[in-house]
């Protein structure tokens, strides 16, 4: 492109000079060309640049060689070349360079191009060399890459294996973790941790909630383990191990409880009134699974309690309460009822308190029953057995001092009434105790014994009293027919005893039981009295024939009856007594009949009449001759007018008016019957009484039996 641009510009310069020479423009190609050249705008940027380049190229004046040199040098010292043309331009003719340039342009150009190409070639040669080097590098790199790839492949392979390994390992690990969790769960479920073991075995950990929890855990482990082992044909080692170790811990735990209990018991047992804490209750509850250990613990408890109760009892007996109030029980030893009663009441109260203590110890809920009221033993629970046994032990030791004192008191009693009262009191407590602590308890049996002793003493006393009564003799000079002092005293004692007995009845006994409870006493007291009445009076009768023994005996007996009367439980004895009385009444009636017959003077005649067998007429018998008969009838009539008919003087001495009437009327009845018999006999023709009717009718009651009944004031029974 450089050449076309250069050409027009140089031609333009030429043309400018030509036009000035011709001076007339014409229409020819040159003109056209000129105008075109003239019209050319040299201000065009590209053109200016091209010109610039050209001018730079030819800036150096001189020959071609010079130019050549300049061009060659131009690469080395460009600045020097630019400065030179300015000097040459001024020196040389203008246009000289341009002509030279026009001439050489092509060659210069080609030369320039060749030079440039040469330079290119050279440069490319270098480049090629570099590229070759690069090629080498690339090849080397390629080789390295291949190598790396191989390595990579290898690595990949091995890492795959590693990964696999790692995967399996992590699986294994997971598995192991699982196992570990299971094992630790198993262990936590089936073994005790350190704390628990410590709680079970160490003496430093008190028996308490923590300890009990550990115990529970141990128990739970054993239960679970047993369940697991039940499913196996042979017990696994682990199972056996677990059982063995837990068993040892459990035993240690139980031993710890026992130790603790024994210690606690020692502490608590010293007070009379004690309370059972929840820990103690729990301890006892657990120990019940180990009866032998429980026994051990409870044995020490019962020993302590025994000693405590014993010393409290002795304190109450001899020292009394604080500062002597309430007063010691023994202070009242002179008052046997109070003394014995206080002791027994103390024991009763101690039992009630002990019962509460034991109930709370065994966590037995009190049944709301009132102690003293009847205790029912429906179910034989284990707790009840324990409680009973412990109770028995605790209060059993009281028996000895109690027994000694009660016995002393009993034996020193002179009054049988007091003896009886004591016996009754003892019996009351015996029944109460039986109901509270059972019949087999030592205290019950002891009370039973003491009661028996008391009763024996009492019976001995009243038997002795009976014997003394039998030995007593009557005052011979005493003509009275009332019961003697001995009987009165005796009856008084009996009366009091009966009062005591009556008040001792609980009210739920039936009549038979009531009577049975007193029969022996009645036998012992009433029988000698009856015996004494008859025997001693016989003696007196012998010595004092005029003394009316029958009335006396009847008086005594009816007195005894009156004593027994108010008490319903004496029915049986009263019946016996009544029989004796009846017998006596029959006897007395007979006597009385005889007496009044004799008094009335018809006894002989009546006797003959009664015996008459008809072998001989009565009028021929000396005693019943009509004259005799007349006299007798007269006497009878006189007697009928007397007071004796209404009441007998002898019988009036009977204290029981009823008996008087009964005997008297019976005798009169018989008398009336005898009179009737006499009348009948007299009236009989074979007895050959002349004017029998007149004979009988001469005197009252004129042979009329009915009239006689009326006189006697009796209803005719014929």
């Amino acid at each position, binding site marked *: 492109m450089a050449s076309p641009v250069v050409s027009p510009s140089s031609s333009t310069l030429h043309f400018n000079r030509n036009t000035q020479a011709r001076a007339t423009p014409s229409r020819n190609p040159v003109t056209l060309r000129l105008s075109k050249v003239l019209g050319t705008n040299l201000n065009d940027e590209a053109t200016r640049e091209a010109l610039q380049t050209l001018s730079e190229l030819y800036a150096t004046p001189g020959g071609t060689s010079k130019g050549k040199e300049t061009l060659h040098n131009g690469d080395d010292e460009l600045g020097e070349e630019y400065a030179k043309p300015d000097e040459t331009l001024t020196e040389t003719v203008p246009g000289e360079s341009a002509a030279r340039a026009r001439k050489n342009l092509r060659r210069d150009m080609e030369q320039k191009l060749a030079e440039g190409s040469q330079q290119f070639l050279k440069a490319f040669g270098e480049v090629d060399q570099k590229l070759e080097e690069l090629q080498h590098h690339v090849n080397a790199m390629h080789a390295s890459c291949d190598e790396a790839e191989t390595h990579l492949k290898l690595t990949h392979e091995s890492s795959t294996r590693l990964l696999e390994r790692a995967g399996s390992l992590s699986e294994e690990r997971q598995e192991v973790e699982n196992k570990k969790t299971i094992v630790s769960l198993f262990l936590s479920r089936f073994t005790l941790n350190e704390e628990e073991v410590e709680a079970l075995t160490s003496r430093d950990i008190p028996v308490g909630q923590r300890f009990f929890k550990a115990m529970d855990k141990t128990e739970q482990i054993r239960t679970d383990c047993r369940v697991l082992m039940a499913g196996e044909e042979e017990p696994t080692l682990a199972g056996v191990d677990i059982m063995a170790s837990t068993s040892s811990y459990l035993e240690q735990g139980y031993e710890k409880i026992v130790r603790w209990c024994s210690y606690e018991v020692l502490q608590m047992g010293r007070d009379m009134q004690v309370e059972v*804490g929840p820990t103690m209750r729990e301890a006892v509850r657990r120990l019940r699974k180990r009866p032998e250990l429980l026994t051990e613990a409870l044995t020490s408890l019962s020993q302590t309690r025994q000693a405590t109760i014993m010393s409290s009892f002795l304190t109450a007996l001899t020292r009394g*309460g604080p500062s002597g109030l309430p007063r010691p029980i023994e202070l009242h030893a002179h008052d046997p009822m109070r003394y014995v009663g206080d002791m027994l009441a103390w024991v009763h*109260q101690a039992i009630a308190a002990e019962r509460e203590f034991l109930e709370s110890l065994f966590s037995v809920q009190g049944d709301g029953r009132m102690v003293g*009221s009847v205790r029912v033993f429906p179910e034989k629970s284990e707790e009840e057995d324990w409680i009973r046994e412990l109770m028995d032990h605790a209060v059993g030791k009281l028996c000895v001092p109690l027994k000694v004192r009660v016995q002393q008191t009993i034996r020193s009693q002179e009054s049988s009434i007091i003896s009886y009262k004591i016996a009754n009191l003892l019996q009351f407590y015996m029944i109460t105790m039986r109901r509270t602590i059972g019949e087999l308890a030592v205290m019950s049996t002891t009370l039973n014994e003491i009661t028996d002793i008391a009763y024996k003493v009492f019976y001995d006393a009243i038997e002795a009293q009976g014997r003394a009564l039998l030995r007593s003799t009557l005052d011979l000079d005493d003509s009275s027919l009332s019961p003697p002092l001995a009987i009165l005293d005796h009856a008084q004692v009996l009366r009091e005893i009966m009062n005591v007995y009556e008040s001792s009845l609980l009210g739920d006994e039936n009549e038979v039981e009531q009577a049975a409870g007193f029969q022996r006493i009645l036998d012992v007291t009433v029988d000698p009295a009856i015996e004494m009445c008859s025997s001693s009076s016989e003696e007196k009768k012998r010595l004092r024939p005029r003394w009316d023994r029958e009335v006396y005996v009847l008086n005594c007996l009816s007195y005894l009856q009156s004593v027994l009367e108010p008490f319903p439980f004496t029915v049986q004895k009263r019946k016996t007594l009544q029989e004796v009385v009846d017998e006596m009444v029959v006897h007395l009636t007979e006597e009385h009949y005889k007496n009044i017959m004799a008094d009335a003077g018809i006894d002989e005649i009546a006797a003959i009449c009664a015996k008459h067998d008809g072998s001989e007429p009565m009028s021929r018998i000396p005693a019943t001759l009509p004259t005799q008969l007349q006299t007798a009838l007269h006497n009878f009539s006189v007697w009928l007018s007397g007071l004796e008919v209404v009441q007998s003087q002898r019988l009036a001495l009977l204290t029981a008016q009823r008996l008087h009437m009964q005997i008297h009327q019976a005798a009169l009845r018989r008398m009336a019957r005898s009179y009737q018999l006499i009348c009948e006999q007299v009236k009989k023709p074979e007895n050959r009484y002349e004017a029998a009717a007149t004979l009988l009718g001469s005197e009252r009651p004129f042979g009329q039996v009915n009239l006689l009944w009326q006189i006697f004031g009796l209803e005719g029974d014929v």
Partner: protein
Amino acid sequence: MPTDDYEAEATELLETYDFLMKYIIIGEAGSGKSCLLHHFTHNSFKEHSQHTIGVEFSSRTVKLGEKRIKLQLWDTAGQERFRSVTRSYYRGAAGALLVYDITNRESFSNLSRWLADARALASPHLVVVLVGNKSDKDDEREVEWAEASRWAAENGVFSFLQGFPQASPFITDIHFLEASSLTGDNVEAPFLLAARSILLSIESGVLDPEKAGSGVSYGDRALRRVNSSSRLSFGSLSGRPRKGTIKLKAKGWIPGTNKCC
């Protein structure tokens, strides 16, 4: 589960008590002693109650302020024939409930005899509460409230402390109230009233629960407290702040040196 059982039992700790007191219940036969007691212990009326035979026992724990008190109750037979038996139970009682029947004048007239027995046989510090029972039968009333109240006031007696050098007199007041064991009206009051009086006696040093035969003893709970503070406090009862009480008591408890009033 066993562990839970144990927890449940642990809460039973409430059953422990501070004091144990012995009461005796006396009065004429038929005045309703057993029914009163039955209502107190069972919270129900005792139907067809029979005469008590001898002496019967029951117990209950009550709460008085912050104190838990276990009452051992001895119910006696009122019948004359059991007198010799029941008399032995006065010994060692800390409190007595003297019961009469407001519809039966005789049961009231005989009170003096019962009181005399109680004073003669029980400890001199015996706290007596007079209870007019059967207050539900107001129509059949034979004993007026005022009369009984007067009787109670007149029969609060002076007695002398034995064993205290200065022998200071103190009054055992007889509290009085009417109750009904049928409706349960006022049934708990006499028991609590007596317990309160006894606690006050202990506080004033007249009664010592440590001593046997006083009718009062410490429970486990109180003992534990004694061990920890070495001195019992009755703050809840006397209404004074706790801390102060302990200090005061420490001074007041030395026998023979107190009696500020």
